[in-house]
């Protein structure tokens, strides 16, 4: 008598969908789409003595950025003053010079103007060599106590963007590649060429409480 092979019933996998829904629900509940990006800054170390809180800077070496309680920005140095009423104008729409262009002009001082920071020749190692840079320049950002954080970030963003663009241009000029493609040492060289000399002061409380 021929024996028919018994067919083994296949495993019932219909509960697989339930398990996967459970896992999905678990992950939806415990996780969040958090942003992990930010504007990286460095704070200066705390002043050790009273003398360190004030430093003398020559007028020509100073670019002052003031933000008031109405979130308006004023940029001034020996060359002139510019007013911006909101973040759009900071970026350079309309007839106003963009904040980043003013900062770049201030840091580079290609025309060796008397009203812009002093240029001194410094050696940065190969392949940059000896280049005149404004090593005493200071960009001072000052805000009122009731300025909104949003405007502060916008101003910081534009100043950092100016330095990033300068570094990018430096990388292209001396290394023929983009700044991100440089090695760590080359990036440090470019950072020494264009250091971020930004000073932030205590906010003044003119607007009252």
């Amino acid at each position, binding site marked *: 008598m021929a024996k028919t092979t018994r067919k083994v019933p296949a495993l019932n*996998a219909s509960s697989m969908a339930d398990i996967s829904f459970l896992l999905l629900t678990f992950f939806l509940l415990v996780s969040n789409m958090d942003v992990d990006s*930010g504007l*990286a800054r*460095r704070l200066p170390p705390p002043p050790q003595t009273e003398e360190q809180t004030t430093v003398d800077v020559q007028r020509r070496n100073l670019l002052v950025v003031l933000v008031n309680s109405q979130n308006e920005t004023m940029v001034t140095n020996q060359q002139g003053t510019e007013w911006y009423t909101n973040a759009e104008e900071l970026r350079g729409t309309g007839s106003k010079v963009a904040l980043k262009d003013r900062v770049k002009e201030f840091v580079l001082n290609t025309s060796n103007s008397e009203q812009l920071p002093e240029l001194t020749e410094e050696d940065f190692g190969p392949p940059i060599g000896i280049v005149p840079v404004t090593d005493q320049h200071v960009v001072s950002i000052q805000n009122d106590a009731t300025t909104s954080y949003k405007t502060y970030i916008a101003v910081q963003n534009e100043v*950092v963007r100016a330095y*990033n663009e300068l570094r990018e241009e430096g990388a292209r000029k001396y290394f023929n590649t983009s700044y991100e493609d440089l090695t760590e040492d080359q990036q440090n060289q470019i950072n020494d060429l264009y250091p971020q000399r930004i000073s932030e002061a205590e906010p003044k409380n003119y607007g009252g409480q």
Partner: protein
Amino acid sequence: MGKFNKGGKKEMPALNSSSMPDIVFAILFFFMVTTTMRSETLMVRMKLPTASEVQKLEKKSLVTYINIGPPMETRLGTGTQMQLNDRFAQVSEIQDYIAQEKASMNEADQPLMTVSIKADEETRMQYITDVKQALRQAYALKISYSARQGQNK
């Protein structure tokens, strides 16, 4: 001709749902990749500002978070509050918090610690400046203003 005649009622075959778990796993993997495990419940409401020059925070294990904003529970008012770990704190408690976080890291990693300030965009700068001064006193000098990538309005 009779061979093709199927006796018996015709039944519509049920929809083959054996691929349902595959689809669900695909969605699950998407969520696993794009999101982060929330380590603490948010007690403050934060609308982060946008900036174009943002950089990603590397090494999330070396990052300490400070959340600043109006509280989520409206009965606590709309004044700016700061959340450290899982409770509200004052600016004066920042130094202890930083020291605590530093102590829980390796010796080698301590100078690389970054403090990520996540503040609501309507916060007044006085508060942020107080926080920054406290961070300076605590020698937590690497900071990052948390912001979304984008053109700032």
